[in-house]
C-alpha cells in the first residue's frame, strides 16, 4: 500500500499520474451557511484516508462533492489527473469512483444477487446481450456471485434485500461498490448501526480490499477507522482541523477537544 500524503491547507505538487484525488480549496455554501470551507487534500493512488469529525462537520457534504452528487461552490476537484469539478455524478462514476451511502441505498424489492448484478453490468465494456433473458452462467451473474461469496453473502443471493439484516445490507453495499472494479472507493459510515459481531465481519472485509484501491472513509468508530487507514483528516464546522497519521490524530489535543470531548 502506498502511503497517503494529505494536506489540509494547499496541496503539495504531486504528479497527476500518482494521485487518485486532489481537492484544492473546495468550498460549499448552502445560502448563508458555510458547510465546507477551503478543504484541500491529495490522496495518492492506493492511499487510504479517513475523514472524521463530529456531526455537522461536513464529512458527508465532502463525499457528495467528491462523488459529484453535489457541485462545489468554489475550488477544484481532480480525479486521476483530470479536472472533474464540472463533471456530473454519472460521469465521475464512470471514471472510477464507487461509493456506499450513509443510509443503505439498495434495490429493496430485488434479490441480493440482482442488486450486485445491476452494479456488475453498470460499467462493463463488454458487449451486452441486452434484450436476452439473464442466465445463471451469464458473465455478470458469475461476477456477482463471486463478489457475494467474497463479502460473505453467498447463501443469501436469492433473498430479497428487504429480508437482510442491517449488517448484511452494509455488506451488500460494499459488494455493489467493489463489483464495478473501482479505482477510488468512498465509504460513508459503513459501520453505522452494526453490532459488535457485524463490525468484526466488516473490518475483515475492509482489510481484504485490493491493494491498489484508493480509499476514502467516513467513520465514527475511531478504532475501526484508525486501523484501516494510513492518514486521517479531521473536520470541524466545515473547516480542516487536523491532518496526520492515526497515532498523530489520537495524540492531537485539538482533535481530542473537538471530537473526543476531552478538554485538558
Amino acid at each position, binding site marked *: 500500500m502506498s502511503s497517503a500524503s494529505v494536506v489540509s491547507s494547499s496541496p503539495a505538487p504531486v504528479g497527476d499520474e500518482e494521485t487518485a484525488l486532489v481537492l484544492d480549496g473546495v468550498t460549499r455554501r448552502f445560502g448563508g451557511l458555510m458547510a465546507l470551507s477551503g478543504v484541500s487534500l491529495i490522496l495518492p493512488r492506493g492511499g487510504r484516508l479517513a475523514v472524521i469529525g463530529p456531526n455537522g462537520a461536513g464529512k458527508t457534504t465532502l463525499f457528495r462533492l467528491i*462523488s459529484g*452528487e453535489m457541485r462545489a461552490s468554489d475550488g477544484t476537484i481532480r480525479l486521476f489527473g483530470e479536472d472533474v469539478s464540472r463533471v456530473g*455524478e*454519472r460521469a465521475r*462514476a*464512470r471514471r472510477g469512483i*464507487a*461509493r456506499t*451511502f450513509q443510509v443503505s*441505498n*439498495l*434495490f*429493496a*424489492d*430485488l434479490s441480493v444477487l*440482482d442488486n450486485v*448484478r*445491476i*452494479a456488475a*453490468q*453498470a*460499467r462493463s465494456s463488454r458487449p*451486452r*446481450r*441486452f*434484450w*436476452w*433473458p*439473464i442466465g445463471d452462467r451469464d458473465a*455478470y451473474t458469475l461476477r456477482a456471485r463471486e463478489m457475494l*461469496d*467474497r463479502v*460473505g*453473502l*453467498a*447463501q*443469501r443471493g436469492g*433473498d430479497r434485500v428487504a*429480508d*437482510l*439484516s442491517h*449488517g*448484511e445490507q452494509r455488506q451488500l453495499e460494499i459488494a*455493489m461498490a467493489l463489483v*464495478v472494479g473501482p479505482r477510488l472507493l468512498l465509504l460513508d459510515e459503513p459501520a453505522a448501526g452494526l453490532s459488535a*459481531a457485524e463490525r468484526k*465481519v466488516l473490518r*475483515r472485509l475492509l482489510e*481484504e480490499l*485490493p491493494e491498489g484501491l484508493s480509499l476514502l472513509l467516513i467513520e465514527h468508530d475511531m478504532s475501526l477507522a484508525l486501523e484501516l487507514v494510513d492518514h486521517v483528516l479531521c473536520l470541524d464546522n466545515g473547516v480542516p482541523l487536523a491532518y496526520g497519521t492515526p497515532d498523530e490524530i489520537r495524540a492531537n489535543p485539538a482533535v481530542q477537544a473537538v471530537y473526543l470531548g476531552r478538554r485538558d
Partner: protein
Amino acid sequence: MSARTAVVKWTVIAALVAVAFVLPYVLGSYYVSLLSIALVAAILASSINVLAGNAGLVSLGHAGIAAAAGYGLAWAYRQGWDLWGQLGMALLMTVVASVLYGLISMRTRGISFLMVTLAAGMIVYGIAYRWSSVTGGTNGLPGIRRPAGIAEYWQFYFLVLLAFLIVTIALIVVGRSSFGLTLKGIRDSETRMVSLGYNVPLYKFGAMLVSGAVAGIAGVLAVWHSEFISPVAAGFQESAMSMIMVALGGIGTVLGPLVGAGLVVAFQHMLSSVFERWQTLLGVLFILSVIFAPQGIVGGVSDLVRRIRRRSGTPPREVLAVQFHPDPQHRDTSRKDK
C-alpha cells in the same frame, strides 16, 4: 421453482392458450367480439404495465400513443394506401408519438411523470379534435375496413390473440433481460443507479419506446375492430381506464393486464345491460382490490399461493437467516484466489 411446479405451470398455460384458440368455435359472434375487445385492451394495458411494473413509471396518457397509431392507419386507409403503407404510417406515428413522450418524460418520475404523460395525451387529443381536415374532428374517421383475411370476426379474434401472445412473450423477455433489470433498479432507487454510472434518462427513454411500440399495436387493432377512430380514443378516460385495468389486475404481473382488461370489459359490456350504474360497481371492486390486494388480483393470488406453500413445508426465512456470516475458512480460500 421445482420441476413439478414448472410442469404444472406450463401445463396450465398451454391449456389456457388451447382454450383461447377453441373459444370462437363454441361461442357466438358477440362474445368472440367481446374477447377481441378485452385482448386489445389487455395489449394497451400491457404497454402501461411494462413501464409501471419494471420502471415504476405510471402513465396517464398512453391512449394518446395508441390513438396516434390508429389515426396513422385510418388516414392512410382513406388516402387509398395499401396495407403495408397503412401499417408503415401507423408505425411512423407510433415512433413519433413515443419519441415525443419519451423526450418530455425522460427526466421525470412519480407524480411528475404521471402529469407529463397526462399532458402529452391531452395534446394528442387536442390535435385529433382540432385538426379536422386530417382527423375528421369530432366526427372522426369512419369506414376503416379490415384487410381481407381478418375481415370476419373470428379471423380478427385469432389475429388479436396471436398479437397478445407475441406481445406478452416479448415483454416477459424484456422484463428478464439486462434492460429489464436496469429498469427495476431505476424503479427502486434512481440515485443509486446514477451513482453506479447509469444514464437513467436514456433508459427511461428506451422503456418509453418499448412501451409505445406495444401501445401502437393496440391502437391499430382497436381501429380494425371498431372500423372507426375519433378523438375519444386519445382521451383521458381511455388512458385512465387502461391504468385501472393494470392496477386491478396487478402492476408488474404478466397476467395482470389481461385479468384487469377482462373484468373491465365484462363490466362495461355485460353488466351494463342489467345494471345501469356498472361504473359504481367497478369503483367498489377497485376499492376492495386496493384494500385487500394492493398488488392487484393476480399479485394477491400469487401472494396467497406463496403463503400457503410456505406454511406447507418450506423453512421460514428466519431459519435461513442464521447462516448469514461466512465461515473464516471459506473467506481465506477466496482471498487466495485473488
